[in-house]
């Protein structure tokens, strides 16, 4: 194994591997048919590398391509590109992002961390602004205060205006002012109590989805307690110190766990592992074996225990509007945290043909595009009967393929989001990429 941090880029990995083997740069370069100077540029992440040359280097360094190219570098580079996009700074040298990440991994991580921090603060500001504009309780309290102040102001102005006021009216107005002052005191206290209590959604700085992901990530997306024959109520799992901080996140997580438990009852883990052994990771055959719908099987495959010898799997679930409502990240396929994802994903293709499953091999752009096998299906639900709305949900299981596999399958190009996708001629592009000059959206 390479003794390298996960932040290292391909060039740095090549260099570290060569040094581990105590090989000279000139010898490795010669065996790959390149000059030592060119290898030096590669090792310092100043030249992109892929394809045959990466294979030659892997052979020369007695390792596999994956060991040299996998890791967190793709995520870091993607995060830096997202940071540049968020800053909307045209002066950023995007074509040297990988070099920057490779030469200054500490600074690059800091840029990424600060960009995330800015996004968090912006979200907090948006929540506060939204709260001031739309919180019905706050709005009603403020309206109450202003209305009462108006009444007091108008009435006291009459009494102190210098014109004669009939004694009967004077008494009436004094009574009104007294009533209004009591109302004002009450409304002010209500307002202070409300503001003092704070809003947990502001304090947490996370969306309910992020809270759920954080909770699940701590368990490798596998909830062992809910796999038991007699599983506990989800409420019992959400009482610890790591429980979601906000009521919204708690409700969101609870709903997820309730579905998880139902899925586990329908497709029990032990039987699923046996079926996987017998049929392989074929969702349709598994669905047949369990007499289950396909989305349930896809969800079950995505939450296998980490100790099981199964390929890594990610999952994305969206609603009818295309919003990602659940995501389990997997290395090799970037899932955007915010904003619209690539409309070419099979996840979105199936929305137009409910109940028709799709199997695709797709690849996102990158220095070494990683093919991913995907299984997707959209399934409608009529919770309120024939007269109610049809609620549709699409599910896509993602299985990144082994880059050194002997039989690579042709893959369809897809992206992450339009803003960070370099595929200039994509017909599905909705906004210009940060990698190109602005172009008019194509129909």
């Amino acid at each position, binding site marked *: 194994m390479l003794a390298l941090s996960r932040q290292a880029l391909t060039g740095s990995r090549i260099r570290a591997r060569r040094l581990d083997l105590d090989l000279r740069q000139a010898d490795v370069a010669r065996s790959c048919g390149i000059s030592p100077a060119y290898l030096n540029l590669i090792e310092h992440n100043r030249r992109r590398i892929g394809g045959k040359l990466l294979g030659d280097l892997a052979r020369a360094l007695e390792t596999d391509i994956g060991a040299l190219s996998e890791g967190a570098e793709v995520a870091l580079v993607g995060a830096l590109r997202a940071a540049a996009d968020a800053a909307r700074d045209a002066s950023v040298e995007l074509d040297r992002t990988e070099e920057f990440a490779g030469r200054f991994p500490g600074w690059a991580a800091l840029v990424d961390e600060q960009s995330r921090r800015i996004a968090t603060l912006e979200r907090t500001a948006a929540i506060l602004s939204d709260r001031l504009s739309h919180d019905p309780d706050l709005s009603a309290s403020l309206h109450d205060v*202003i*209305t009462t102040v*108006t*009444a007091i102001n*108008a*009435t006291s*102005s009459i009494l102190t205006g210098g014109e004669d006021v009939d004694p009967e009216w004077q008494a*009436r*107005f004094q009574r*009104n002012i007294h009533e209004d002052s009591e109302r004002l005191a009450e409304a002010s206290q209500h307002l202070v109590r409300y503001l003092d209590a704070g809003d947990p959604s502001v304090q947490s700085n996370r969306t309910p989805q992020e809270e759920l992901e954080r909770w699940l990530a701590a368990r490798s997306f596998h909830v062992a307690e809910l796999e038991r024959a007699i599983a506990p109520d989800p409420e019992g799992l959400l009482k610890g110190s790591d429980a979601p901080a906000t009521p919204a996140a708690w409700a969101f997580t609870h709903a997820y766990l309730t579905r998880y438990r139902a899925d586990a009852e329908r497709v029990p883990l032990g039987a699923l592992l046996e079926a996987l052994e017998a049929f392989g990771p074929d969702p349709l055959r598994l669905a047949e074996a369990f007499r289950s719908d396909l989305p349930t099987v896809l969800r079950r495959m995505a939450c296998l225990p980490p100790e099981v010898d199964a390929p890594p799997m990610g999952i994305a679930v969206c609603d009818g509007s295309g919003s990602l409502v659940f995501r389990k990240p997997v290395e090799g396929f970037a899932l955007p945290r915010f904003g619209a994802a690539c409309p070419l994903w099979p996840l979105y293709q199936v929305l137009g043909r409910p109940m028709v499953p799709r199997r695709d091999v797709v690849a996102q752009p990158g220095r070494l595009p990683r093919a991913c096998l995907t299984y997707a299906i959209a399934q409608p639900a009529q919770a309120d009967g024939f007269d109610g709305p049809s609620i549709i949900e699409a599910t896509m299981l993602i299985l990144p393929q082994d880059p050194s596999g002997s039989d690579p399958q042709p893959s369809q190009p897809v992206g992450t989001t339009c803003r960070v996708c370099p595929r200039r001629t994509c017909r599905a592009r909705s906004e210009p990429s940060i990698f190109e000059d602005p172009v008019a959206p194509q129909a």
Partner: protein
Amino acid sequence: MSGHVLLIEDEPNIIEAIRFILSRDGWTVDTHSDGSTAVDEVLRRNPDLVILDVMLPNRSGYDILSDLRASDTTRDLPVLMLTARGQKKDKEMAERVGASRFMTKPFSNAEVLASVRELAGG
């Protein structure tokens, strides 16, 4: 001054104060507090000017004013809008639906009186 003002507002003590200062100035003041029947009340009473609160029970002042501007008989009726929300977008909304004047709470009595005189004093 004399004339007929219809005050559409749901806060009793504000109603009392405005009615007092306008009556003392010679205006006849009728009042109404329910948004859902406000348009019918305007048509029935045929005032020279309407003072209209934005936040009313059952119907917003903006919707009421839109209906008044859509009717031939009240298209040009002077309407003074009152609101507790003084943001730019609220003022723009009032202008868009056809308010003759927009006043933010808390207002001064002198301001209300001057506006009524100006808008309906002819």
